[in-house]
């Protein structure tokens, strides 16, 4: 196998266009989001996205420690994406890996355009993401949940940030790549998207795409983001309207 090349013996797409987990090519996994799941955090959310189980807590705007990080012009955003040691097949060492540090950074940058930090100079908004169980596409699930948690914290936002991946499996562009497809497929493209401002705030790619496939893949992922957006909105209305605004 060539470096970066992928195994192809697993049947990823059968002759009826059904994927290894029974989904159609444009069908996302089952997604459930609940807003306001933590007592102490200013805002929080829990997401199940396929087999991903992720909880997010948001604190702030609050004083910055250490102080020298404070910015007199604007608030700052900090983000920690962390995987629990038991979240994956082989135990993961608890210390943050290089992968987790990178994901923390791209999630932070994906949320920054949406959060009106300029209204809170000298403060910080901290986002803590804990992946309790990981499946493919955990950064998208984490981003979608973090966005709901920020809204739940009542922090002014320009837009929600939705997230979903698309990828290439058995020479076909498919929505929401799962773990098996990520390992054995040909490409994986996580995308974060502000649905009302129509802006892509997170995009990465692993794998080979022609320029035409690249365009199609971005469009497919944005389609998925719009589906996730509806679920994000529902999570917030469920909390703030269905029970008469209690809690």
């Amino acid at each position: 196998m060539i470096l970066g090349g992928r195994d192809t013996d697993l049947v990823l797409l059968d002759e009826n266009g059904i994927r290894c987990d029974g989904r159609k090519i444009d069908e996302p996994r089952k997604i459930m989001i609940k807003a306001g799941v933590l007592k102490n955090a200013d805002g929080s959310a829990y997401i199940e996205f396929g087999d991903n189980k992720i909880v997010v807590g948001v604190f702030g705007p609050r004083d910055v420690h250490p102080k020298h990080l404070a910015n007199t012009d604007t608030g700052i955003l900090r983000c920690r994406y962390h995987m629990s040691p038991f979240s994956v097949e082989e135990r993961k060492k608890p210390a943050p890996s290089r992968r987790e540090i990178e994901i923390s950074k791209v999630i932070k940058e994906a949320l920054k355009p949406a959060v009106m930090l300029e209204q809170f100079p000298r403060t910080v908004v901290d986002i803590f993401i804990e992946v309790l169980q990981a499946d493919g596409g955990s950064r998208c699930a984490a981003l979608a949940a973090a966005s709901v948690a920020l809204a739940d914290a009542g922090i002014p936002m320009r837009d929600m940030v939705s997230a979903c991946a698309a990828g290439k499996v058995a020479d076909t562009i498919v929505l929401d790549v799962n773990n098996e497809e990520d390992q054995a497929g040909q490409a994986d493209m996580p995308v974060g998207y502000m649905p009302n401002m129509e802006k892509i705030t997170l995009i990465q790619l692993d794998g080979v795409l022609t320029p035409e496939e690249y365009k199609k893949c971005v469009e497919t992922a944005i389609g998925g983001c719009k589906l996730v957006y509806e679920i994000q909105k529902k999570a917030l209305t469920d909390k703030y309207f269905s029970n008469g605004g209690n809690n």
Partner: protein
Amino acid sequence: MGNVSLIDQLKGQKIHDLLEQGKRVDGRSFDEPRQLTIETGVIPKAEGSARVHLGDTEVVTGIKVQLDRPFPDRGDNGIFICTAEILPLAHPDAEPGPPGEDVIELARVVDRGIRETGMVDLTQLVLEKDKTVIGIFADTSIIDHAGNLFDACSYATTAALLSTKIPKWEMQDDVPVKVEGQESDAPITTIPVSITMGRIGEHIIVDPNADEWSCLDARITITTNSDGNICALQKGGKDGFTIEQLVKCGEISVSVGAKIREILKETKGTSQ
């Protein structure tokens, strides 16, 4: 990064005004990278090496090749590992110590470009399946930081790999023994080229210099292979892109990447 100084704000305004007139602060066109010069073989003790100047940014990559154990889930593949370090002499803000998130992202983006294009055929680097494989370690030191480290490090790593000689090992009584005087080129399948573009307002500029870099709204690095396909991508920065801008960046990465690929090929006459 801390607060923006008044000078930076004025510079940013100037850069922005010039872009509105269709000009860049250093006179380049929007899709024109800075001058790229590559020397290979600059560190004879390394199995491969390259020193790259991209405008005023300067980096050195050295490749060490040594035997190692394979990753448990990749027993039939050799190892490729990529790191980067911004040396304290490279910039007044650079400090010694463990790598921060920017440097970790940098090394992972360079690694991803090379890995996902399949540049090095790792299956040819196996001595004994699941036990002993050849490891290629590409370490890049940033010597002078003047913007767009992504492309400078990527070109240096690629050029160094193209110049790499792999020593020959043979298994004798279950022990790998180096055969002196025999070496071969690294098993190269394609030449990856990363193109980093910045967005300032509505303008997309290729290879932002240090001043432009400090006022980017968003950036994106796209790596293509020799077939002109897109293999790796990383968005960064404080704002986003529209889909039209992303498609345009894809096109730029293919066309400008093809020109850079010619320069990379020249650094090693025998490469494909």
